[in-house]
């Protein structure tokens, strides 16, 4: 009798308890949910205006490390470019001119992110257009991944509160276009994305 009870008890103890089954399926659903979230993000287009801008660090060609977290409270213009990109050349001078205009005030920062490039050609490009704001390579394309860029040039402007205020695909056509957006942000207006 005792033996039977013991055998039965053993039999039940070997059965997988309901909570374990529920847990197994919950974990599966959680995993699939996570993957779905990743998939949805990867299929989404570029970042949308108003959401927190992705944080990154940029190692510049002259060896400095710029962390955008340290720049909170400032307006940050992030420009993706490459030396092989012809349209980038169209806006290079305008960007540099705009930078010189704001540089002294200290509340606006320009960062150039060099996308898939050779260092020597990138340096030659910077020299050619006499670009003085911090520029660095996008190592492993990590920054362009964060911003989900679709090509170069692309420009993003981050507001003092760390959210994305402006996004532009393609080159700026004139310095005025840049100044309008940046000055708008300095006066507290949120610029419009294009």
């Amino acid at each position: 009798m005792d033996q039977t009870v013991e055998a039965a008890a053993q039999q039940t103890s070997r059965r997988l308890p309901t909570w374990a089954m529920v847990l197994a399926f919950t974990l599966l659903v959680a995993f699939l949910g996570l993957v779905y979230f990743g998939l949805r993000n990867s299929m989404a287009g570029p970042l949308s205006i108003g959401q927190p801008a992705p944080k990154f660090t940029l190692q510049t060609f002259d060896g400095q490390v710029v962390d955008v977290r340290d720049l909170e409270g400032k307006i940050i213009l992030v420009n993706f470019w490459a030396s092989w990109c012809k349209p980038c050349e169209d806006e290079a001078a305008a960007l540099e001119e705009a930078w010189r205009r704001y540089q002294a005030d200290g509340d606006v920062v320009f960062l150039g992110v060099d996308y898939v490039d050779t260092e020597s050609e990138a340096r030659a490009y910077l020299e050619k257009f006499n670009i003085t704001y911090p520029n660095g390579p996008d190592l492993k394309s990590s920054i362009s991944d964060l911003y989900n860029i679709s090509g170069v040039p692309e420009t993003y402007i981050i507001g003092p509160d760390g959210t994305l205020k402006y996004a532009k695909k393609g080159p700026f056509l004139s310095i005025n276009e840049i100044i309008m957006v940046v000055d708008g942000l300095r006066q507290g207006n949120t610029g419009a994305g294009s």
Partner: protein
Amino acid sequence: MLANFGYGAIVLAFFVSLYGVFAAIYGVRKNRAAWVESARTAMLLIFPLLTLSALSIVVLLVTGHYEVQYVYNVTSSAMPVYLKITALWGGQAGSLIFWSWTMSAFATAVTLRNWDRDREFLPWVIVVSLITLAFFLGLSIFVENPFERIWITPEGRQVVSMLPPAGSILATVRDGRGLNPLLRHPGMIIHPPMLYLGFVSFVIPYAFAIAALVTGRSDDRWIRLTRRWSLVAWLFLSLGLLLGSRWAYDVLGWGGYWAWDPVEIAAFMPWLTGTAFMHSVMIQEKRGLFKRWNMVLIILTYSLVMVGTFLTRSGVLSSVHAFAQSAIGPLFFVFIGLTLAGSLGLLLWRWNDLRSEGEMHSLLSREALFLLNNLLFMGILIVCFWGVFFPLISELFTGQKVTVGPPFYERATAPLFGGLLLLMGIAPLSAWGHSTVKTLGKAVWKPALGAVAALVAAYIFGVRLPAALIGFFAVALVIFVTLYEYIRGVSARRRRSGESYPVALMRLAARNRRRYGGYIIHLGVVLMALGIIGIELFQTETQGTLARGQSLELDGYTVRYDSLAIFDVQDGRNVARAEVTVFKDGRNLGTLAPRRDYYYDSGQPMTIPGVRSTMSEDLYVLLVDWQPVSEQGATFKVYHNPLINWLWVGGFVFIFGMLVAAWPDREPAPSVQRAKVRAGTQASRA
């Protein structure tokens, strides 16, 4: 014409797969063998169909049909023929066909085996294999069609589609964009197919496991039937990973072999569960334990293969390896969800039937140590899994994508790898069923003494890093234990039969290939570990911009910059090639030529190091930058990588061991085989 033919072959193969699934299930349900046989024939038909389809792509690639979008994307007229052929797996659409083609080859090989004894598995193996195949073929037909062509509509618009839009004509495209230069390395030509072979061949043991679950057979028959399949899958996956490392070392120009990149890890995760599986099935065969665990492991391995393929190809993870973003993500997601839920459901349904036939009696028995080995592999898997998915988890909860880098993986996995090395030294000496400290100590003390001697020698030669000393000790222990096992076996044979040493050694390995092949694999792993310890703990580097005639110094080496030449090569490259002379302690060791290739067609550069290799170390010189006009100054990065070549030597030993273990036995007559299996089981339990 050829494009239509190739596409037709895939579509036909897709419908034949669906028919095979239907016929197999119908045959089982109605108990009609003819339907199952028909499903089997369907499975046999797919390989020739896909061969025709793959050949069509190859012909289109080689003959330069650039109006076919895939051909345009991955080849150009400047490429040599062998690269045009290998461009079959150089892009998403082609590699999916390649995946299906290799999968169908494996499925055919399985179908052709003798099924007399295991009839009940057949329909379910067909169902699982064909569902997997149909899914991949579906991707090729509906989403990533390699046969789509570029058409010009009457309005002058370019349209990419399989069928011509009304009134449009085929575009005339003179040349293609060319294969990504990173993929033009010999290592890269065979690295992806090896990985794919590893991936697809794991489908077969999984199919058998699912067949065992559906039919309710709780014995170890499915494991015995798939033992060699698993080994072959594991062999290819290991080869794929090794070749990938070698490619990274030769081409990516960062002086390393493994970057803990998400896609590398995606291929490494099924290898981890596969390796755990290779060990834990032995416990089920010998002791009847771990039936559920083995099911979990093979399901995990298959799922990780699918998840890894999905992550690589859908753009969910950002990585140097990622394919261009593609629309296959949602379909893949649904497929993974269904297979995971289905496998889990089946496993839970049969959970009670998969009870162990015995118990573990001793904490030091072979099975207990194998369990520990499995736990360590699972530990590494969890670290990898967490690292790969952490960016998603962090983004989900904080809105910020935070990635983890190599330091995270290195710190978290190093102790686990160390534990595995030590176990590799001890476990082969413990006995099945029961071992005590005394019996194990008695077996292990001689090799351990040798390992301590190696440790002392390392210390005397100036090694002071504790991690390195522990590593060298573990490596020496495994080497001595393995040699000791061989010596013991050979001596015993010689005593019994009076054979000469070489004959006894050959026969010993031939009699128990899995065991002695396994030992060779262990030897390979520790030699690889030696290389990894060398580069991880002792790598040094320096960088400097030099004028001609100036030098850089590193660990007794002097690297002198002699000259730089920039020239165009016929295959569409611009090459900047520097020459440096290497000296050690004043002695001229010869010249190296690090270079930077720039591919005009794709606009991508590639850094090829100049390497001086010896068994004790590599001197690895990279040309980082130069002055384009004067060619006077150039920047070099120099790495000193001690012991790195043992990684590759170990790789060869590892592969050799796997070949020994996986080499097919002559198939005995069924009745004899049955008797042998039983006798073997009894002997192992005795």
